[in-house]
């Protein structure tokens, strides 16, 4: 089938795909650097993505030499020595500067016990509502409910994207010399909080242009929630005691052993109760720190301070992992001219290494990589004389699309998604990784691949969901392919047969290809000393 001519057309300098924090900062930065910028989100800039419904902690370290040196040393170690010192310093400085802007723009940071503003945490709904206003004020055209389905390309690199307007069903096309992929990670529709819009679409789009993925093995992340709910903000459970099916206490609170939840949930049901929220004062503090956590309980009529509730783990894939699109330049460029990536869609190994855990790194990376990619993308686009409208661009998508279908039979989207989830969600496969089990699972995943080359219905929902299914199958195959190649335990990646870190593998693992997946190793750059300066944007008004 020939691809249809899009009904909505726009021309810009920079197109940002994705409107979570990374996309918002990218669009703001691109526009602030003088680029005509369009941002297209699958959902809505303000509500969509992993940050918006909940909230995140940030790496917020004062420009104090000792404090920052310590933070860098800590991270190099916990990141399994795959991160780069100059990038961590740069991240810290950029996040620090931008959080000052957020304050200037009117985010109401609370006071700490010494009466100082506490800026290492933001509540998602207010943060992202503010970012929407900032992005608008910067002059960016926001296209909500406009999922991108594929990139446009010619011999000079990327040149825009096409997608569908989910509300009108119309196709859209935005031509732009620079495209920033900020579509988030891939969590396979696990219903973790805010995680069902991130299906790895950007990673697939990048790979279709020949860009490599890096660190896909660092994707072993689950989060704990009430079994019935979606609110995966773990910190509240720091106040809980845990029980087995028979009501025996298995943990009384305080620091938990590594793998505590997985080990026990793998054996059978686990219940929790917030026994350490044992005074009205403490209860009020816990509630006000993470109000959304209590919403489902209040609605279910359960008092988590005095009643036991079952818990479960929801898979988060690469969202609180670190793998994704491989970056090559200081401003988050990829190997394809004009193509940039930011936030969870990109590999975060340069700063986080092999583990994002401990919080703060990913949310700060979204701010910093967004800001950097916006500058890089604006400069790339503005160096062109003519607008992207003059380019002879063709759509680059190859899988899960109407115009690329190789058989008349429709893609069985629900079945494919279920089959992928059956391989990615079980703790027995993905958490307790071992060679034969992952290898067998990967074989089954490969069998799903031919299915996503089938036909696609004409409705917007059918088009989006078919493409998502294709992206999820590819991301799953990348993850387990990488897991089998990294025969060691490092950061969040473990392999039962190789329980130790292997010095010889202190390199990044790059994957290329979609149908056939190939790999190569890349040395971690060890060039200490030169730190690319943070991007400073002079802001005058509040929003």
């Amino acid at each position, binding site marked *: 089938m020939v691809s249809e001519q899009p009904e909505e057309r726009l021309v810009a300098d920079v197109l940002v795909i994705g409107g979570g924090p990374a996309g918002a900062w990218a669009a703001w930065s691109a526009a602030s650097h003088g680029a005509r910028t369009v941002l297209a989100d*699958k*959902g*809505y800039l*303000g*509500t*969509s*993505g992993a940050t*918006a*419904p909940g909230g995140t*902690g940030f790496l917020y370290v004062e420009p104090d030499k000792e404090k920052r040196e310590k933070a860098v040393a800590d991270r190099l170690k916990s990141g399994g020595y795959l991160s780069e010192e100059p990038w961590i310093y740069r991240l810290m400085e950029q996040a620090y500067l931008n959080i000052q802007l957020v304050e200037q723009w009117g*985010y*109401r*940071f*609370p*006071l*700490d*016990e010494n009466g100082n503003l*506490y800026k*290492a*945490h*933001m*509540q998602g*709904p*207010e943060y992202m*509502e503010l970012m929407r206003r900032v992005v608008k004020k910067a002059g960016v055209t926001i296209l*909500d409910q406009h999922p991108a389905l594929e990139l446009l390309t010619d011999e000079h690199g990327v040149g825009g994207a096409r997608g569908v307007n*989910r*509300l009108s069903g119309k196709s859209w096309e935005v031509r732009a010399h620079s495209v920033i992929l900020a579509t988030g990670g891939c969590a396979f529709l696990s*219903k973790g*909080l*805010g*995680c*069902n*819009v991130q299906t790895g679409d950007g990673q697939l789009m990048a790979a279709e242009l020949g860009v490599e993925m890096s660190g896909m093995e660092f994707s072993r992340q689950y989060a704990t929630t009430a079994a*019935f*709910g*979606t609110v995966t903000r773990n*910190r509240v459970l720091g*106040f809980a005691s845990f029980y087995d099916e028979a009501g025996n206490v298995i943990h*009384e609170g*305080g*620091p938990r052993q590594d793998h505590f939840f997985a080990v026990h949930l793998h054996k059978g049901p686990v219940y929790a109760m917030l026994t*350490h929220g044992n005074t009205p*004062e*403490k209860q*009020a*503090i*816990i509630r*006000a*720190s993470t*109000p*959304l956590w209590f*919403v*489902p*309980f*209040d*609605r*279910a009529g359960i008092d988590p301070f005095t009643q036991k509730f079952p818990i479960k783990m929801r898979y988060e894939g690469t969202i609180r992992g670190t793998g994704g699109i491989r970056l090559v330049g200081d401003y988050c460029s990829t190997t394809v001219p004009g193509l940039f990536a930011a936030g969870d869609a990109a590999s975060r190994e340069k700063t986080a290494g092999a583990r994002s855990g401990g919080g703060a790194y990913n949310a700060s990376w979204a701010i910093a990589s967004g800001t950097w990619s916006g500058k890089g993308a604006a400069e790339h686009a503005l160096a062109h004389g003519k607008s992207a409208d003059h380019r002879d661009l063709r759509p680059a998508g190859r899988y899960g699309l109407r115009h690329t279908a190789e058989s008349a039979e429709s893609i069985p989207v629900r079945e494919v998604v279920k089959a992928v989830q059956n391989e990615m969600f079980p703790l027995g496969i993905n958490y307790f990784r071992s060679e034969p089990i992952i290898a067998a699972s990967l074989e089954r995943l490969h069998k799903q691949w031919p299915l996503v080359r089938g036909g696609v219905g004409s409705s917007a*929902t059918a088009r*989006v969901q078919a493409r998502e299914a294709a992206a999820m199958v590819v991301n799953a195959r990348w993850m387990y392919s990488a897991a089998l190649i990294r025969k060691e335990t490092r950061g969040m990646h473990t392999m039962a047969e190789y329980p130790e870190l292997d010095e010889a593998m202190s390199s990044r693992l790059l994957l290329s290809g979609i149908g056939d997946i190939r790999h190569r190793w890349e040395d971690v750059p060890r060039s200490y000393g030169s730190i690319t300066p943070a991007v400073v944007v002079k802001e005058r008004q509040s929003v």
Partner: protein
Amino acid sequence: MIELVSEDRCIQCGLCVKVCPTNVFDTNEDGLPVIARQEDCQTCYMCEAYCPVDALFVAHHADEKVAVTEQDLIDRDLLGSWRAIIGFGSRGKVSMAANDTTPILRQARSGIARGE
């Protein structure tokens, strides 16, 4: 999952249709939002947060339907309860951000390790 659109309260502003990240709603001929793809709901509570007249209700269960009646939700003071906590629509009088107790959460937790 989303369980209720109150026809009584809805002023057909279209916001919920626009803000839902997973495109759960359609708009019917009368301009009312309808829950068209409940199975795609990710139970993120964002539609509720944005509805200006507290006409929506997202139940606690992520995977199963929960039967609700509007009167019961009103009686239990649940309609609009999430929006009230965030402070959206309070013209700045309430702010979840300003009330954030994260900076003292650690203090509240001290003592647990010692078994208090």
